């Protein structure tokens, strides 16, 4: 005798359809997750860029007092550099408002200190505010607050949208996989019944289907995830060859998290199909005797 035929028939148009559905859903879910993640990355680098710089203005201080304040600021944790702006720089900043002749000498001008944060430091405004107050300075910390606030709000919405899309797609994928598995199984009811009446235990029968659908979900999920990887790579290539300023675009570099997504997608698809198969078989067996 040649090798034993599997108890479950191998080729089945219905299983091909299921394979396609699982593959397509995994493609979409993996792609959505990859884009959500890159949105996250872009959001982080954007806000960092915005939040990484702030300006302290000292209305009452003279040049010497301003230098002391600068040193105080520079000694603060998270500050990479604090630079006192020169008269020329302040004039240049104010030129749009007051014209190129500069300001009258008599006008009291605030001293301005440009502060650059260490990378990864976020939102050091309040800390600086506190230190300067403790040191007795009348001051204003301008955190580029308006603009940064807008960017933060926008990015928060983008993150929420991306997360919602991922959650919806992933749960839809799991639900559709479960339904499709269920349907494919009902068509195999004859096999379930024959094995059952021949004295096969529930877990033996369920095991046959679990193995089959686990492998199907795993393979289809892998195909979908690989296609998503290809699509993501194509997008990165497109962005790079267009020469766009990458700092403001979503970061599409493949790192360990992306690879994790690509590995997890087929595993989740396989598990969804497997659990659906188990639940369907056990339930349909319980409905007989």
């Amino acid at each position, binding site marked *: 005798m040649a090798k*034993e*035929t599997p108890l479950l028939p191998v080729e089945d148009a219905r299983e091909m359809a299921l394979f396609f559905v699982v593959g397509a859903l995994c493609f979409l879910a993996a792609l959505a997750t990859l884009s959500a993640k890159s949105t996250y990355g872009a959001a982080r680098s954007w806000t960092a860029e915005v939040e990484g710089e702030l300006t302290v203005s000292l209305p009452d201080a003279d040049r010497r007092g301003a230098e002391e304040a600068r040193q105080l600021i520079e000694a603060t944790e998270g500050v990479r550099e604090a630079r006192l702006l020169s008269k020329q720089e302040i004039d240049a900043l104010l030129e749009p408002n007051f014209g190129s002749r500069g300001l009258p000498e008599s006008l009291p001008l605030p001293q301005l200190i440009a502060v650059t944060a260490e990378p990864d430091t976020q939102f050091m405004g309040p800390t600086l505010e506190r230190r300067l107050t403790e040191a007795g300075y009348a001051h204003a910390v301008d955190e580029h607050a308006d603009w940064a606030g807008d960017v933060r709000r926008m990015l928060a919405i983008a993150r929420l949208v991306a997360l919602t899309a991922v959650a919806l797609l992933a749960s839809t994928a799991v639900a559709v996989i479960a339904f499709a598995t269920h349907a494919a199984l009902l068509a195999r009811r004859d096999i379930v019944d024959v094995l059952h*009446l021949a*004295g*096969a235990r529930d877990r*033996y029968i369920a095991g046959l289907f679990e193995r089959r659908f686990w492998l199907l979900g795993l393979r289809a999920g892998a195909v979908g995830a690989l296609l998503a990887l290809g699509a993501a790579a194509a997008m990165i290539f497109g962005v790079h060859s267009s020469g766009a300023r990458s700092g403001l675009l979503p970061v599409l570099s493949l790192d360990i998290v992306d690879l994790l997504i690509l590995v997890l997608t087929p595993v989740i698809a396989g598990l969804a199909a497997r659990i659906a198969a188990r639940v369907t078989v056990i339930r349909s067996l319980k409905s007989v*005797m």
Partner: protein
Amino acid sequence: MTLPRHDLFDDVAVRLDGVSLRYDTSEDILSGIDLVLKPGSFSFLTGASGAGKTSLLKLLYLALKPTRGEVSLFGRPTSRLTRDQLSALRRRVGVVFQEFRLLDHLTAYENVALPLRVLGRKEASYRHDVEELLAWVGLGERMHSRPPTLSGGEQQRVAIARAVVTQPDILIADEPTGNVDPEMGARLMRLFLELNKRRATTVIIATHDLGLVRQVDAPVFRLQHGLLVQDVEYGPAARRRTDIVKTVD
């Protein structure tokens, strides 16, 4: 030393106590049936089409739960058993289904070997027996064909071979000769009788073919209006008795 085949309660192979069955909302298909089949007995179940023969057999091979009453196999009330224990009981029961229930993607040989595979037996350990059995039912040449390419009668013989391949303690056959010519019918009956005599298999055969019933001296149960009545035997001995009665008359 081998343990005795039957445990303490095995003096009854099949026992039905006040068994009723209804599907969905309809009236009772079977109502209050009592039945005892002794180990090694051979009996027929008759009744018009739709009388409930298949339904009664389904209760015996544990495919259905009775609506009321208790079905016991080998002295064990099945309503009190776990699912695994029920599976273990099913392995001692061979069934020839009225509609065969062969798996189309498996060959005749693999269909017959299916119950052995379920038991976890290795192919090498049963190949010879299965091939011999297939040859005996006249399918030696066709054992590697798939059911869709077999005739109705050939499929029926595959179904019978699958039911007896594990040498079950109980053999339940639902219209097992419905699709074969009388000659093959008689041959299959001899197989059932042989199993019954040589291995003390309890056999119950549902049929409305009285020609088949007349070949054997065996009790005949008849289903009518949901009730089970035991007819006089139809077999050769019974006919001789009626002849004697007539002569005396």
